């Protein structure tokens, strides 16, 4: 059995007050393991993004705990939590959120620069990650000159540049056509997932289910079940 990367227990999250009070995530518990590609799947409004935010230390749960490699992240101070995200979590946002005024290389190097790695060293290292995602020759271009798939790969390079244990993908194929989306996820599975890394991927794109090790289905804020995917490594 692989080591537990993320342990979510009894997570609840309410939004709003009075009559507008909404129970977005209802008593969600699950474990995700290192070396695993773990999908969170469900229709819009099912609470996937809220759950992902709580797991990644961005949104404080109303109740419940999140332990990353045994450590309860919501007991950390705000600064410790920021350090935790910087050092342990890698994000690939749905809209990429790349800086259009920086080069592709500088975008990929941002986590390293935030970790106070010297500029030249950070660029050198980021170049290696761009090489991993096959964009070494696009290093000096601004992201706006790249295709959607290429921008997605820059976002992946940026996410892995921080050498995180947990990689979080939010709807990675939402802005891509079917083929590109599949290629990206296939690439991630083959090149980014390692024995010491867990990938959490939120999606409702069934075309990429084939790459999941496990798929947690959500509906109305609740877990409807966890299934083994076709890419099950465990």
């Amino acid at each position: 059995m692989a080591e537990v990367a993320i342990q979510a227990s009894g997570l609840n999250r309410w939004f709003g007050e009075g009559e507008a009070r909404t129970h977005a995530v209802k008593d969600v518990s699950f474990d995700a393991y290192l070396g695993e590609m773990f999908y969170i799947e469900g229709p819009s409004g099912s609470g996937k993004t809220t759950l992902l935010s709580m797991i990644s230390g961005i949104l404080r749960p109303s109740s419940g705990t999140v332990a990353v490699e045994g450590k309860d992240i919501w007991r950390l101070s705000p600064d410790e939590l920021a350090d935790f995200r910087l050092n342990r979590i890698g994000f690939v946002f749905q809209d990429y959120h790349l800086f259009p005024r920086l080069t592709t290389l500088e975008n990929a190097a941002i986590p390293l620069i935030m970790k106070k790695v010297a500029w030249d060293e950070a660029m050198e290292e980021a170049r290696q990650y761009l090489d991993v995602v096959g964009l070494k020759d696009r290093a000096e271009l601004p992201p706006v000159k790249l295709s959607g798939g290429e921008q997605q790969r820059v976002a992946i390079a940026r996410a892995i540049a921080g050498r995180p244990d947990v990689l979080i993908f939010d709807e990675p194929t939402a802005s891509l056509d079917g083929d590109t989306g599949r290629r990206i996820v296939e690439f991630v599975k083959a090149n980014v997932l390692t024995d010491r890394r867990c990938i959490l991927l939120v999606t409702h794109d069934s075309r990429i289910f084939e790459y999941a090790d496990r798929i947690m289905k959500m509906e109305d804020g609740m877990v409807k079940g966890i299934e083994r995917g076709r890419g099950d490594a465990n």
Partner: protein
Amino acid sequence: MRGILRIAYKLMVNDRGKFAALLVGITFAVFLMISMTAMFAGILSKASSTVINVGARVWVMDPAVNTVASSIPMPDYVLDAVRSTNGVRYAVPLYSGAALVKLRSGTYQAVTVLGLDDSSLWGRPDLLEGRVEDLYAENAFAVVRDSEFPKLENPRIGTEFELNDHRAVITGIADVAVSGLFGIPTLYTTYNRAVQYIPNARYTVSFVLVEPKSEADIPEIKRNVRALGYQALTSEEFKEKIATFYKYQTGLGTNVLLMTVISFIVGLSISGQTFYTFILENLDKFGALKAIGAKGSVLVAMILFQATFTALTGYGLGIGLAALTIFVAKLRLPSYAATVVYSNLGLAFVMVVVIAAISSVIGIRKVIRIEPFEIFRG
């Protein structure tokens, strides 16, 4: 931190349109502020030209006098009383008045006449042409070669004209540190000739110029002069009094202050709004940085750096532009009154810092409030 500031720098500078708009806003504001205040400083300097040029350390005058041009004649006994005051090394009279000159062409020109003590000629200007002692010659006058000099049809040594229907002869061409404010030429002559040529009321002493034995004697001289019902001011105090008069009793200061405030508001509006737009456009990126692990202090440092860098660059450009404009204007208009002094630069700097601070606060409030969760929600 240097790496993240470099990122902040690139984010700002690479957004050329916004960066240019920010620079234009601040540069323009600084340019206007410096130009306005420099012009005012120049006017104040010119308003005190006689005080600067004559160079006496202590000036005795009627307390109601606000400027050299508006002197109130004092009786001769004031001069005698001042001379007999403890701590006075010597004291001389100065006459300051206006006269009308009829030039050789037949046209009339108003002039300022300064009458220097006959025995010492204390307060005399440096002569570019002619000899000092020639001022004792019959009908002798020295003319100041400044921007108003051509109005007397560029006189030379020996040039004759009529001054209040008296014959006058130029015996010297003088140079002074600062030319006058009112755009009229200045003539120097002896005190007695001045009062003889220019119709006067009962009293003729415009000012008593005093050389104290030491700095320590000045307070006592002031006390004794006050006891006479008059006022003794050091040259600095007199210049300050003149400046105060122009600032607060002529409307000039209020107008310049208003223009400076308007410049500040224009700069603040352009820069503040552009910076705010810049922050808004990059808000999701700042949110992404926050999600990735940037602490609030890092984001604040980035915004402060961007605002400070832009403000200081705009400040430098504004000063450069103002200095260039003043330089060019002085080449074309020799009497253009504008002097950039440290207080102008200081005032503009303070205003730029305020612009940067307000712009930063607006941006920081927005960025600090952004929830990284919003980034996930798109």
